[in-house]
């Protein structure tokens, strides 16, 4: 049962709403009808059964009474004729009278003590005594104790059921019997043939449980079944004297026919109601679900990308509003989809056409997507590698990568070199951006890789050009710087030679050593000057190492020392003690310092008081270097263009316009920043911030 309900429930859940509405309608219409019908059925059935039994009892009572009256009358007649009260004699006319008074008596006999017929008056036969023993033993026995005796129901030669009745009497001192043969066909016939309504029937059972009257003659003279059949409604009535039982029964099928008729009519009504309700349910179901079906179909079309489908529902209820909302949403969606496609197309053009390689990387460093530009740079067999292996050639993730360290917002301009698919050595700039709205597992980070090989070459050329320009500026300084020690060497050497030539005996060994030491010191000075110059002018790639900032500042100043002196510039150095080492290329920083000092010298050319302050102090997470001059300052309108390549305010032949641009590039490579503060006629301050650990290691 539970399984059935479960199956029905599952089936119902899978059905469309209109079927559910139909089922609801049918159930709601049939359940009240069924309940009412069941109530009336049980009520009417018991009432009907009561009435049937009442009617049957009445019929049986009347019939029993009729039979009993018949027999009583016969007994009365026999007893009278038997002369019990001596009112009658035993003449033939007396017995003829008996025949006359009771139409059912077939014959009257007087038997002797042995039961043989002495006298006979018959209705059909000749009044001859005959030789048969008329009175059976059973009756004779009964007559010994009773004043009357019934025989068994038996048949005469014509097949008629008859019963013998006898009473004893005494004639002339002899015990005799007056007997009659009573025809039963009238009683039996009446019981059998009495028309009964609705298949009712009556039957009569004798004392031996033998059916002696029945509407169905095939059941006559058979034993009555002991068990009452369950499918009949009936009553019994006992005829005590005879020991007979009258039974009236009616099959339940016909007894309850009116109820069946009622049920049938009820069913017709129920079917009609169910049909009508079903029609209404179907209409209601269709009325309610048609808009939903239309919306569903339109949504499917929309889902399949077949464009917007307008739903036409001429209703103003919630479903009508829903349809209108859907139409609006559908139009909006189509419009947005077009815009999205447009955006996508643009993005694809940008992504694939800007020359940068792009990839989406998951938190597990797995590349989920890359654009064709990036794909072309790598070999196919390495595309499944993690990003740090594929792009960086590393065996572990980079520590400064935002994928590795979520606190790091993005990886900016990290440069790397690798061989492309075509075995070309190329330099790339590599940036990583976390994506805030990415779906997990589909790439939460965007990696942008730019081929900056050409750019780097240009930058290197710019740096070199800038260097050469600085060297040009510093050339006379170098000459003077070298010339002075050379002149000293020359003077000491000539003086020493003269004294050797004159064999000056006063010249002690200590004086000779002094001469040679001075010469050596000046040679060392020359060597350092030329070494610095050589270092400065050398074209080299980024060489990262930890250097002492004080040393770099000193070297830078030594390169421009002559110029400062020549221009009578008062240099103030303010270097904080115990500054930590900075990782990066010290020579590049030297180039920056030289450039900034040269610019300061130029800026103070027309000033009377010329002050240059170079300071270095610890700042938050790095070192702040400041180059401050008391020059004429920089106009605010040109400050934004100050770091642009080839932008210069100097006269032709004096500047290349590359200096500050190169400085900017180098400080960027340090991972630091450069800014300028300037006030016209007061001077400018260039602030360089160099981070302690973010210097690029390559």
């Amino acid at each position, binding site marked *: 049962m539970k399984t059935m309900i479960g199956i029905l429930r599952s089936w119902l859940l899978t059905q469309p709403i209109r079927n559910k509405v139909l089922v609801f309608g049918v159930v709601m219409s049939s359940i009240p009808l069924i309940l009412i019908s069941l109530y009336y059925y049980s009520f009417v059935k018991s009432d009907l059964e009561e009435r049937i039994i009442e009617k049957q009892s009445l019929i049986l009572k009347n019939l029993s009474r009729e039979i009993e009256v018949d027999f009583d009358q016969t007994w009365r007649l026999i007893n009278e004729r038997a002369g019990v009260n001596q009112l009658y004699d035993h003449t033939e006319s007396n017995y003829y009278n008996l025949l006359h008074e009771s139409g059912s008596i077939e014959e009257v006999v007087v038997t002797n003590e042995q039961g043989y017929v002495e006298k006979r008056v018959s209705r059909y036969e000749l*009044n001859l005594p005959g030789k048969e023993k008329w009175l059976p033993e059973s009756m004779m026995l009964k007559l010994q104790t009773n004043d009357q005796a019934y025989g068994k129901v038996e048949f005469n030669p*014509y097949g008629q059921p008859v019963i013998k009745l006898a009473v004893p009497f005494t004639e002339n001192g002899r015990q005799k019997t007056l007997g009659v043969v009573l*025809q039963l066909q009238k009683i039996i016939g009446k019981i059998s*043939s009495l028309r009964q309504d609705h298949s009712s029937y009556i039957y009569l059972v004798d004392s031996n449980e033998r059916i002696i009257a029945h509407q169905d*003659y095939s059941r006559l003279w058979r034993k009555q079944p002991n068990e009452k059949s369950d499918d009949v409604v009936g009553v019994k009535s006992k005829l005590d004297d005879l020991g007979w039982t009258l039974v009236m029964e009616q099959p339940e099928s016909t007894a309850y026919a009116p109820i069946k008729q009622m049920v049938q009519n009820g069913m017709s009504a129920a079917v009609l109601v169910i049909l009508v309700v079903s029609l209404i349910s179907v209409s209601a179901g269709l009325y309610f679900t048609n808009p939903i079906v239309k919306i569903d179909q339109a949504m499917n079309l929309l889902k399949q990308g077949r464009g917007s489908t307008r739903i036409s529902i001429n209703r103003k209820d919630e479903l009508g509003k829903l349809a209108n909302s859907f139409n609006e949403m559908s139009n909006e969606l189509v419009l947005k989809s077009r815009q999205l496609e447009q955006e996508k197309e643009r993005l694809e053009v940008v992504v694939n056409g800007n020359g940068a390689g792009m990839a989406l990387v998951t938190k597990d460093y797995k590349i989920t997507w890359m654009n064709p530009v990036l794909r072309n740079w790598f070999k196919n067999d390495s595309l499944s590698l993690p990003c740090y292996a594929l792009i960086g050639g590393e065996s572990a993730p980079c520590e400064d990568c935002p994928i590795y360290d979520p606190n790091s917002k993005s990886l900016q301009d990290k440069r790397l070199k690798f061989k492309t698919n075509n075995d070309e050595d190329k330099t790339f700039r590599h940036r990583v951006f976390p994506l805030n709205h990415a779906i997990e597992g589909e790439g939460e980070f965007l990696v942008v890789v730019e081929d900056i090989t050409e750019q780097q070459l240009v930058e290197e050329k710019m740096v070199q050009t800038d260097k050469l320009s600085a060297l040009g500026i510093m050339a006379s300084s170098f000459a003077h710087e070298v010339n002075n020690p050379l002149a000293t060497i020359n003077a000491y050497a000539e003086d020493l030679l003269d004294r050797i030539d004159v064999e000056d005996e006063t010249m002690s060994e200590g004086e000779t050593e002094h001469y040679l030491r001075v010469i050596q010191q000046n040679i060392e000075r020359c060597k350092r000057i030329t070494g610095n110059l050589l270092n400065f002018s050398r074209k080299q790639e980024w060489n990262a190492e930890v250097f002492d900032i004080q040393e770099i500042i000193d070297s830078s100043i030594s390169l421009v020392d002559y110029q400062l002196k020549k221009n009578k510039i008062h240099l103030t150095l303010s270097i904080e003690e115990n500054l930590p080492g900075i990782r990066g290329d010290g020579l590049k920083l030297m180039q920056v310092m030289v450039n900034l000092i040269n610019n300061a010298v130029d800026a103070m050319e027309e000033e009377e008081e010329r002050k240059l302050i170079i300071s270095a102090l610890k700042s938050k997470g790095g070192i702040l270097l400041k180059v401050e001059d008391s020059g004429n300052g920089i106009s605010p309108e040109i400050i934004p263009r100050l770091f642009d390549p080839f932008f210069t305010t100097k006269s032709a032949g004096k500047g290349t316009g590359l200096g500050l641009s190169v400085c900017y590039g180098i400080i960027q490579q340090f991972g630091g920043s450069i800014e300028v503060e300037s006030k016209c006629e007061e001077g400018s301050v260039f602030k360089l911030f160099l981070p302690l650990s973010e210097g690029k290691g390559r």
Partner: protein
Amino acid sequence: MKMKWYFFFVTILAVSVLLYGLFEFSDEKTPEIGVLMVGENRYQKFTGLKKGLEDLGFEDKKIHFTVKNAKDDQGRLKRQIKSLLKSEPDIIVTLGGIETIELKKEIDKTNKSIPVVFAGLAAPKELGLIEDYRNPGSLFTGINNYHTSISGKRLEMLKNLVPSIERVFVIYDSTIDTSRLSLEEIQDASGKLKVPVVPSDVSSKDFHSSLETKITKEDAILVMPGFRLESMTDEIAELAKRKRVPAMGIYEYEAEKGLLASYGASFYSQGYQASRFVSLILQGNEPATLPVELPDEMKFVINQETKETLKLTYNEDLLSIADVIHQEEADE
């Protein structure tokens, strides 16, 4: 989808029809009873039949009779039998021997199987209509009016009523089986009762002249069953009256017409009794299983006027049990 709705409604209707079919209601159609009578004088049986059915609970409107009255024309009777069989009634009730015998012939020819109730005829077994009284075993059942078997008894009663009778003329019809069988019964009883009998065949040419010449004062007339004899009652009554001899018939109407006495089952009571068979068959019994019955009652009737006219000595014992009728009343 439309098809599904269509199927839904068809299913509801089909289930309804099936459930409807579970409740079988048999419409009680009006039974059609065919009634065959050879002549008008059997009409009393029909009256009895109708009354009997009415008493058994069949009202007129619940039963329909098709009555065929041959008006004492045997040829017409045969035609009516054919016509009746063609209409195939539920039961045919024959109101006498000749009707039953002719019907049997026709049924045997046509192989029809319509139950037949004979409302009184003599010696159905001897006539071959039934196999046995208790189990007739054929399409025929009904009332053995005992008019053949009772013939001896009638002779006895006639002799007892008028003890002075020395010889009895037995009028019979040699062409009618029952009549002939009845004569045999009479002849058998004649020996036992020691009453001489003279058979007188109405089919013989010298029937009238023979009776006219042979009957004397101490003689009596006993009429045997037979439809032709039934139609000759007036003639026989007139003869008995003229010859001043007692005559005994079977039916009450014979006494009414002037015969001294009659002893037998009345037409009315036979018809009345036959209604039980009709009822039983209508209620589903086969005629083959319904035992043939003897008449419920035998009527002994004396015509008071004839009795007085004859001025004979009568047995008072028998007179005391007889139903006495008066000619005037009967004529009225």
